[in-house]
């Protein structure tokens, strides 16, 4: 071993030890938000936060089906009872009265602090006269019975006003006392966990509890439980990511190892061949851990990417060695080409490094560091460790045939051009857009799960909110005051017919200022009695009919102000939590709108409310996605441009740059056409995968471009390229088996693209 070799070995071991130490204290995350964009605007930030951790994200939507309605109702009640008793849920609603007793008591008790109609004039003789005349008319009317019970304690009808104001936008229908879907086939429940949606362990425990409670309630029945919601998705995705990362990495490693063993016929060389990959993966994880603080599960699954590409380096080293030549001597000649290929890949991966998706940025860094280390290990460490005089017999045996094949390939040049033209024409002429225009395409959740979620949401009558007013404020009280201001503007909009209705946090929890003002508007008992006496002159009410009212108003004058704590455990509290949220800095009040007919006018009406913004959620999400797609396209183009500059600098011939790039562009184009033909809408992930195709494929086209004496050497080069491409196709092909959209997209695209890149590099080669 040479002196330089010993240094290389020593440095390698030192680096590995350092990386291992870093990896040992690395946190591995499976939080899917890494694949949600890092939002650029404050409004979108609120949305993403809500998706991640908001009260809405803590909802579990449940459906029970496949039994008679009566049995389903029993199951719903039994399940709700055991979930309520578990103490893990903030609320469990299934339509049963039991759930609303507390709400009713709360509204009744605090009606004079909650009702927006409470003003000083309303308790004057004139105001009360108006109220009593209205009450009389209502008592005579068919609907009068509804208020008869409350009339003596609440002649102004505050409780009716509150009930109307707080009525949910829509509710599922009731059967046998519990919620059912419109077609009556499914009993519905809505549970809200105490744990945050991002606390996946607690979410998992809550879900297991739900399933266990259901299994117990439904023992011996055919009933089936459906569950959906952010927590359900997080738990399922984590399980899937863990399973896929482990299973697919093992499968790919196993398959590739088997292929390499068949080629090398030496366990030692096989082991050596995996060294660059293992070192690269270790260094990649360590680098991501250092840069991002944690490593995402999907990044790990991407170890497969490295196996696909870095194993190639060892293949080139071992396979291209002529029999009897010292290890590395052939490699000396290959190194410049290999180095250029590696740099091309790194330039390609760098597009991902700048991605706004944390997940993709991690993949980029992981790949770049991994490739650098793998190439360095191949260059300086492997030759030191390889057995002297090792040659791959199969490579020599296959070389003549491979060479013949490669030399014959350009016959297909015209056929290739026809395929290319067909693909181009197809992409140009197909009526559907090639790129998916919705954020949903990035969702880690399968289309089937999304459909179930949408179905349960529709069953539960939760309308899709499209317009949302968001108000930011430094504190909770400021947010409530701002919400009151925005609500006043919105009531004006309703009067003008620009929208039908809205929900706002101040309806559940008025600001302290408002509550104090309402409390101050309530007169003392004697004054109220005097006003009442004046008000009922000439009306048929008995003199002392409204004593309960006088008593309740008097009580309300000393009632403590209503706060979050008072609302806890009620469905009103649950709704408040979803509308008023604490953020990293400050608070946000959210007012979902219903029936918006003139969004522009509403936005205009809100101008007077500082910090209030009208969001069009659909547009926001679509804009968000369009923004990321644009960003990804620009990154990719920048990556491609960087590759062109690199090749131009290295090859110093525009014509050779063209020769190297043409097969790669062709492979990318035909891959797109094949994916489109398969009915797949391309997402950002496919775009990134196409960059990987260019990165991986550049090795092939560079080797075909390389000046090399025809003969056995060149034959071995072709064999090694074929083998390298095969391992890439297997590695990424395995990734395509994943149920996780990002892995599936990248896997299928790169597997297909790499194979095409090799074929096109051969058929489009200029020289034979």
């Amino acid at each position, binding site marked *: 071993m040479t002196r330089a070799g010993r240094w290389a070995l020593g440095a390698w071991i030192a680096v590995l030890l350092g990386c291992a130490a870093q990896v040992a204290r690395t946190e591995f995350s499976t939080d899917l938000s890494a694949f949600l964009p890092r939002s650029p605007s404050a409004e979108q930030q609120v949305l993403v936060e809500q998706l991640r951790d908001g009260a809405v994200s803590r909802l579990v939507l449940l459906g029970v089906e496949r039994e008679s309605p009566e049995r389903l109702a029993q199951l719903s009640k039994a399940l709700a009872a055991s979930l309520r008793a578990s103490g893990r849920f903030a609320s469990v609603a299934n339509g049963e*009265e039991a759930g609303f007793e507390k709400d009713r008591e709360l509204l009744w008790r605090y009606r004079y602090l909650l009702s927006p109609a409470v003003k000083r004039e309303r308790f004057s003789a004139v105001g009360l006269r108006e109220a009593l005349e209205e009450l*009389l*008319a209502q*008592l*005579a*009317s*068919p*609907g*009068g*019975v*509804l208020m*008869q*019970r409350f*009339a*003596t304690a609440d002649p102004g009808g505050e409780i009716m006003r509150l009930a*109307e104001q707080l009525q949910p936008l829509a*509710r599922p*229908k*009731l*059967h046998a*006392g519990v919620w059912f879907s419109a077609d009556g086939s499914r009993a519905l429940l809505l549970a809200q966990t105490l744990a945050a949606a991002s606390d996946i362990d607690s979410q998992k425990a809550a879900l297991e509890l739900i399933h266990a409670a259901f299994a117990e309630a439904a023992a011996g029945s055919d009933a089936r439980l459906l569950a959906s919601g952010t927590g359900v998705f997080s738990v399922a995705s984590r399980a899937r990511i863990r399973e896929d990362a482990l299973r697919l990495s093992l499968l790919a490693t196993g398959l590739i190892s088997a292929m390499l063993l068949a080629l090398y016929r030496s366990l030692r060389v096989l082991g050596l061949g995996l060294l660059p990959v293992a070192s690269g993966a270790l260094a990649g994880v360590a680098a991501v851990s250092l840069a991002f603080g944690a490593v995402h599960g999907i990044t790990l699954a991407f170890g497969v990417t490295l196996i696909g590409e870095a194993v190639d380096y060892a293949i080139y080293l071992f396979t291209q060695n002529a029999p009897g030549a010292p290890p590395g001597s052939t490699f000396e000649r290959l190194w410049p080409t290999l180095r250029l290929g590696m740099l091309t890949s790194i330039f390609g991966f760098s597009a991902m490094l700048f991605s706004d998706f944390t997940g993709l940025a991690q993949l980029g860094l992981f790949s770049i560091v991994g490739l650098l280390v793998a190439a360095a290990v191949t260059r300086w460490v492997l030759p030191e460790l390889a057995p002297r005089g090792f040659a791959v017999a199969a490579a020599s045996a296959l070389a003549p045939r491979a060479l013949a094949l490669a030399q014959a390939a350009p016959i297909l040049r015209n056929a290739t051009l026809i395929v290319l033209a067909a693909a181009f024409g197809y992409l140009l002429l197909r009526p559907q857009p090639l790129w998916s225009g919705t954020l949903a395409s990035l969702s880690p959740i399968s289309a089937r799960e999304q459909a179930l979620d949408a179905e349960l949401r529709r069953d539960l009558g939760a309308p899709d909110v499209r317009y949302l007013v968001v108000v930011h404020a430094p504190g909770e009280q400021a947010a409530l005051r701002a919400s009151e201001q925005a609500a006043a503007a919105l009531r004006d909009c309703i009067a003008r017919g620009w929208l039908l209705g809205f929900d706002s946090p101040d309806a559940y929890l008025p600001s302290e200022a408002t509550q104090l003002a309402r409390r101050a508007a309530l007169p003392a008992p004697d004054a109220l009695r005097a006003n009442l006496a004046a008000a009922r002159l000439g009306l*048929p*009410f*008995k003199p002392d*009919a*409204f004593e309960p009212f006088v008593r309740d108003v008097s009580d309300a004058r000393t009632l403590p102000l209503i706060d979050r704590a008072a609302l806890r455990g009620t469905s009103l509290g649950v709704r408040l939590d979803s509308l008023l949220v604490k953020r990293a800095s400050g608070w946000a009040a959210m007012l979902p709108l219903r029936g918006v007919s003139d969004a522009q006018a509403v936005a205009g009406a809100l101008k007077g409310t500082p910090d209030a913004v009208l969001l069009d959620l659909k547009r926001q999400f679509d804009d968000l996605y369009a923004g990321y797609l644009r960003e990804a396209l620009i990154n990719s183009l920048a990556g491609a441009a960087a590759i062109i500059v690199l090749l131009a600098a290295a090859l110093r011939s525009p014509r050779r740059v063209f020769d190297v790039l043409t097969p790669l562009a062709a492979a990318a184009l035909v891959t797109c056409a094949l994916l489109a033909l398969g009915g797949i809408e391309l997402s950002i992930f496919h775009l990134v995968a196409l960059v990987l195709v260019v990165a991986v494929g550049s090795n092939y086209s560079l080797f075909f471009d390389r000046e090399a004496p025809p003969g056995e050497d060149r034959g071995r080069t072709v064999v090694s390229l074929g083998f390298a491409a095969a391992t890439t196709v297997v590695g990424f092909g395995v990734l395509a088996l994943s149920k996780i959209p990002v892995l599936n997209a990248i896997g299928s695209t790169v597997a297909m693209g790499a194979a095409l890149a090799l074929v096109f590099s051969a058929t489009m080669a200029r020289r034979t």
Partner: protein
Amino acid sequence: MTIGLRRALAAAAALLTALYFVPALGQAAGTLGLEQLMHELAQVKSSRGKFVERKYLAMLDTPLESSGTLAYAAPGRLEKHMLAPREESLILDGDTLIIENKRTGKRRSLTLQENPVVWGFAEGIRSTLNGDLATLRRFYKVALEGDFRAWRLRLEPTEPRMRQAAAEIRLGGSGTWVNRIEIFEAGGDRSETVITREPS
């Protein structure tokens, strides 16, 4: 709800008095008579009438009077249109109860299943008109007095929440025409509605 269908019998009072004189007969007719009455009522597919309703409320010195029209269509639709002192409609159709004020354009819709008390009131009247004894018995203990020409149904709520609201509902009729509805509320308030056939 406080509705019923029936015509005004000028002789209602007289008939009722007569009924009290023959209680033994009415009770002897008992169960059989009830089923027969229900069977007869079930034959009526639609009817229309005018009503005058008086509410006697503890908080009021004098009764509150309102009037308007009533319409019934088998099996489940019942409309009460109050015309005085102001216009307001109450429409019961299937599971839904709609209270509509044409003047203000306000419209409230209730689902019966979500409002057990309202549901109880509504079925007390509707199921009687519909001759649906099974539904009636889900909510009430049912007793019949009188004969076919002048009968009185006494409905006593069985469900606890309903009992908190209403002590008893009495419907009076002659033949298949329901002409009187009285609701005795648990708190002592009561209402009586007299229904007369609309001259056709």
